[in-house]
Each structure stands twice: as structure tokens, then as C-alpha cells.
């Protein structure tokens, strides 16, 4: 039963105002799994959820629910519930009535409603909040009410659209753990949308990376992190040094003027490839033992490690090391064969530069503008 496909999207395309937002999407979602749709703002994540919930109809393609097409089934007849991006709680109803909303529609007897709402309030840690006005709750509490309101209907699938985006960091971390626990306990399939890669990696069974209206990669968090299929995924998930390289032979990759042993094979001789090396996989060694040699141009203390920018033949690498080196030092770098990940060239190649313009400040700025775009 574990492998049963609850939802399938077949050749789904959707355009708004002549602009293609989703382009020929094919995917299936297994029963009881926690799948995350991950991608930059505006890539069509919300649109995909709305298609599954029934608020949008696809221009092309079929959506299957437990094997049956549901393109023409209205939202209120789908066994799918949504936790909306901005919660959308009913302002004319108190906490109890908001959560009881779905059960009242099913005309359940009053004492059953009471009991189930009580259990739900306990599950989301809101005991005693029954009579509260939803508009006077904090963001985190509203969030919990929204989750309870959806979960109480025991949907087969719960859709969550960036449910934690509005919460502060601490609360967000706590809620991540709670959501994951709720999902395990209830056995409901979660389709979770986020643009936060850390969140995606830490919560999901399966991560699906979307960009430019297409699925870039589907896999477990470790697969996605360790084996990104192209430069976009490598760049979007975690930090990475993405370099131009050549496969001179099986298990031999040449980049930055050095030929490395690696674990990849099956490329054509001298095929041009993208190479990914994660910052934490690079070892700092004395110059004479280094496979690569370069000059340190910047060092930032990060608590657990130092983030070191090293200039190697004009390409700025980022490496992470627990040992301090000083700016201006001449150091050697050593990379293990299994730390080198080789990817075929794609249209995303060369879109991502080195770390020469990198600064935390810039990253924060771009995060902010992403939030404003929501």
C-alpha cells in the first residue's frame, strides 16, 4: 500500500495571460508521503497546489486522484484540504467554529463535533482557545487554527502553501518539527510548498525542485543535495561551487587546471560538464600537498566553521573549514573523489557565477525582495 499513488499530474500545462506558468508537468505523489514543492518565488508552486485543490483548471493534461480523473470535480467534492498561504480564517467565527466548519457541513451530531474539535485543539496545542476571536490571535496561533480546520476533515491529502513563511525563525523551526510529527501521526499525505530549501530538506520524504514552470528534479533530500541534476538545483539547494570541467576519461575530471579522480563515468571522452563541489567537502592543506592552490580573499566566522573565500585562477571558491586561515594566506586545497559531483551541461550552465560578489547582506536583500513578491 505504501506505493499507492494518491495524486498524479499528467502532462499538465497552465498559462496566465498568455504566459506559460506550468509546462507539461508529470508527477505522482505517493500515499502518506511528505512531499515538498521547492522553487523560487513565481515559479508556479501555488498554481500547482491550486490545480490539485480545484481552484484552477489545467489548460492541458489530467489530474488523477486515486487513479480517477478529477479535472471536472469541484473543490468542495475533492478529498483534499488546503492550509492557505495567509490562513484565510473566517473572521465571523471563533476558534471553535472555525475548526468545526467542515464537520458542521457534514451535519455531524453536536457531541461528536465537540469531541473532535477538542482533540484537534490538543493536537495543535491550542487547548482552551475555543471561544477566542481568530482575529486577535498571533500569527503562529492563527496558523495552528488553519491547520486544525483542515486536518479535522481527515483529508487524504493536505496542501500547505508556505504555511510558515510569516512566522519568525524560532517559531518556524518549532512548527517544522510539529508539522512533521502531525504528518507522521495522522498518516495524511502532505504536499508542502516552500521557497526555503532548508525547510524542504529537513521536513520532506520527497523534494521536488521546480524552476521556470518545469520540474528540475524529484528525489529524497539527500539525493537532491548530493546528486543535483543541473546547475540550477545545485545552486538553489545549499552552497556550491559550480565550475566548468571536462571529463577526460571515466573517473577523471579536469577543472581549475587539475585532473581529479572522481566517481562518475559514462560521459563521452572530453565531454564538457558542470562540476559541483560543496564548500564543506574541501579540505585546507599546506600548499605543497594541495591539488589546487589559491589565495584567501575573505574569511567570515560562522559559529561552527569559518566561511573562506579562496581565489583559484580567478574563480572565487567558497569553502568551509573549522581551522582559521587569514586573508592573504596562500593555501592548498584537497578534494576527495566522492566529493566531486559531475553534471551534464544544461541551459542553466554558466548562469551561476563564483562567490566573487558574495556577501550575506546581499543574500538577505534578495530574501526580502522575494518575500515582497509574495
Amino acid at each position, binding site marked *: 500500500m505504501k506505493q499507492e499513488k494518491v495524486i498524479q499530474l499528467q502532462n499538465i500545462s497552465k498559462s496566465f495571460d498568455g504566459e506559460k506558468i506550468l509546462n507539461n508537468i508529470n508527477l505522482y505523489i505517493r500515499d502518506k508521503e511528505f512531499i515538498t514543492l521547492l522553487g523560487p518565488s513565481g515559479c508556479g508552486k501555488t498554481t500547482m497546489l491550486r490545480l490539485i485543490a480545484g481552484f484552477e483548471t489545467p489548460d492541458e493534461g489530467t489530474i488523477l486522484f486515486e487513479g480517477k480523473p478529477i479535472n471536472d470535480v*469541484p473543490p468542495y467534492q475533492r478529498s483534499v*484540504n488546503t492550509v492557505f498561504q495567509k490562513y484565510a480564517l473566517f473572521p*465571523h467565527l*471563533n476558534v471553535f467554529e472555525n475548526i468545526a466548519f467542515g464537520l458542521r*457541513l457534514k451535519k455531524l451530531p453536536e457531541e461528536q463535533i465537540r469531541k473532535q474539535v477538542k482533540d484537534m485543539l490538543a493536537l495543535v496545542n491550542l487547548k482552551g482557545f475555543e471561544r477566542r476571536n481568530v482575529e486577535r490571535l498571533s500569527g503562529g496561533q492563527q496558523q495552528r487554527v488553519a491547520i486544525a480546520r483542515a486536518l479535522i476533515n481527515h483529508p487524504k491529502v493536505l496542501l500547505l502553501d508556505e504555511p510558515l513563511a510569516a512566522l519568525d525563525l524560532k517559531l518556524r523551526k518549532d512548527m517544522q518539527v510539529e508539522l512533521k510529527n502531525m504528518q507522521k501521526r495522522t498518516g495524511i499525505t502532505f504536499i508542502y510548498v516552500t521557497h526555503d530549501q532548508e525547510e524542504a530538506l529537513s521536513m520532506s520524504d520527497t523534494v521536488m525542485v521546480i524552476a521556470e514552470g518545469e520540474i528540475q528534479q524529484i528525489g529524497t533530500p539527500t539525493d537532491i543535495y548530493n546528486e543535483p541534476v543541473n546547475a540550477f538545483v545545485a545552486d538553489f539547494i545549499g552552497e556550491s561551487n559550480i565550475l566548468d570541467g571536462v571529463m577526460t576519461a571515466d573517473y577523471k575530471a579536469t577543472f581549475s587546471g587539475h585532473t581529479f579522480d572522481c566517481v562518475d563515468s559514462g560521459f563521452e571522452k572530453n565531454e564538457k560538464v558542470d562540476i559541483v563541489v560543496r564548500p564543506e567537502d574541501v579540505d585546507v592543506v599546506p600548499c605543497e600537498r594541495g591539488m589546487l592552490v589559491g589565495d584567501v580573499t575573505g574569511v567570515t566566522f560562522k559559529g561552527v566553521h569559518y566561511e573562506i573565500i579562496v581565489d583559484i585562477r580567478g574563480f572565487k571558491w567558497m569553502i568551509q573549514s573549522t581551522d582559521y586561515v587569514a586573508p592573504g594566506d596562500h593555501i592548498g586545497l584537497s578534494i576527495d573523489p566522492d566529493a566531486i559531483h559531475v553534471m551534464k551541461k544544461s541551459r542553466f550552465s554558466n548562469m551561476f557565477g563564483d562567490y566573487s560578489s558574495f556577501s550575506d547582506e546581499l543574500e538577505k536583500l534578495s530574501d526580502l525582495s522575494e518575500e515582497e513578491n509574495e
Partner: protein
Amino acid sequence: MKKRTLLERMASAPHLVWMVLFIVAPLLFVAYYAFTTPDGSFTFENIAALSNHAETFLFSVCMALISTVICLLIGYPLAYCISRASARAQKILIMLIMLPMWMNLLIRTYSMMAILDDGGFLNNLLMRLGFAPVHIVGTAGAVIFGMVYNFLPYMVLPIHSVISKLDWRLIEAANDLGCNNFRVLTRVILPLSVPGIISGLTMVFVPSISTFYISQKLGGGTFELIGDTIERQFQNPVTYHVGASISLVMMILILISLAIMNRFSDSETGGMIA
């Protein structure tokens, strides 16, 4: 409290003078006349004389209630449909609703008469088409029709303004939780439009209960509403004081009902009620 500067006080003076002159003073005059005899001595007689008009008063309340309810029954669906339309269509429809309001009530009522009168446009048309003419002007129905026709915009506009500002995500949320379109209407849109309904009800009821022109013209003189009574009392210097006392009592009753309505709408939006 911060002391206001002389300049600020002078700036607000015209406003104050205006209010005293045109709002407070007339009210005081009404109260004064209500409790005095023509020679200026204090009396309760005018108030006591109200009992003579109790029947008219009840009749007026009934007529006003009926036309208010009809306005709600027509106005709510109308406002709802308008708010479903595209932004452009909404603008045009709202314009059409407001258009008659820019015309004088007298003119509108006269044109209604011209249409509905026994020899009027409608009956001419009916006879040409071979139907029997209908007697409309002079019936209670005509008076109610006149009120509904004249006051309907006051119902539609506040309701439309509330519905069109509703958060559409709430509607999607209700859909998502299992509401079909009808239930979305009854469980979410209707309760959330209560403030609009309340203000529509008051805005129709108050002019309906005090109207006198509509009943005189469309009622063909067969009906007397409390507004007509007041008007008649004021036309005669002897009964001037009785007119004032009826006005005063009406005003107090209307204020009380407004207060009740407001209380009701406050507690409604405050968040109980399933």
C-alpha cells in the same frame, strides 16, 4: 487633554456655528413647540394628543416594514449579483442604481404616477395589447411600490460595498472545506455582509417611515401615513404644536431603533453565532 490654540479654536468655529444653527437649534425648537401651547405656556397636552394618531402611526410602521423587507429581498440578491460581475460591469451597474438618486424625489414620484395612473402609460399599453386596465394608483400596493422604487438604492449600495470588499480567499477556504456555492453564500457571505444589511435596513426604514409625498401621490389621497399627519399639522398654526410633538416622538423612536440596530451589528461582527 491638550489645550487648543486660539487659531485651532477659530478654525473650528464656523463648523460649530453651523451645527448649532442648523442642527441643534431646529431640534430645540421642535422640543419647545412640542411642550408648549400656542400662547407659550408649558403643557403635556400635545403629547397626550398623540393617542389620536396611534392608528396612523402603526399603519406607517407596517408600511415601512413591508417596504424595507421587500427592499432587502430585492436588494440583497441584486447587490450580490452585481458584486459577482467584472469590475467594469460593476461600475456601470452601480451607476445605473445611483442614477435615479440624482433626480428629485418629486419628479420621480410624478413620473411614477404618469406611468401607473389609471390613464397612464402602463394602462394604455395594456389596453392596446387587449388586456383589462389595472387600478394601481390609490392602492396600498402603489405606495409600497413607490417606497421600494425610491429607497432600493439605499439598500443595494451598502450591501454591495460590503460584499465586494469580502476577501475572496475566505470563499475559496469555504469551498475547500466542503461548501457548494449556495452554502458559501449562507455560511460565509451572508454572515459577513450583516453590517451592510444593517445599514441598508436603517437607510431604507428611516425615510420610509417618515415619507409623506409618496403616499399622497401614489396613494391617491386614500392613505394617511404619519408623515402626512405631521405635514398636515404643520400647515395649520393651531395644530403646529401637535405636529412638533409627533415629530419629536418619531425622532426618539427612530433614534432608539438605530441604537438597537447598531448594538446588534456590533455583537454580530464580534464573532459568535454559527
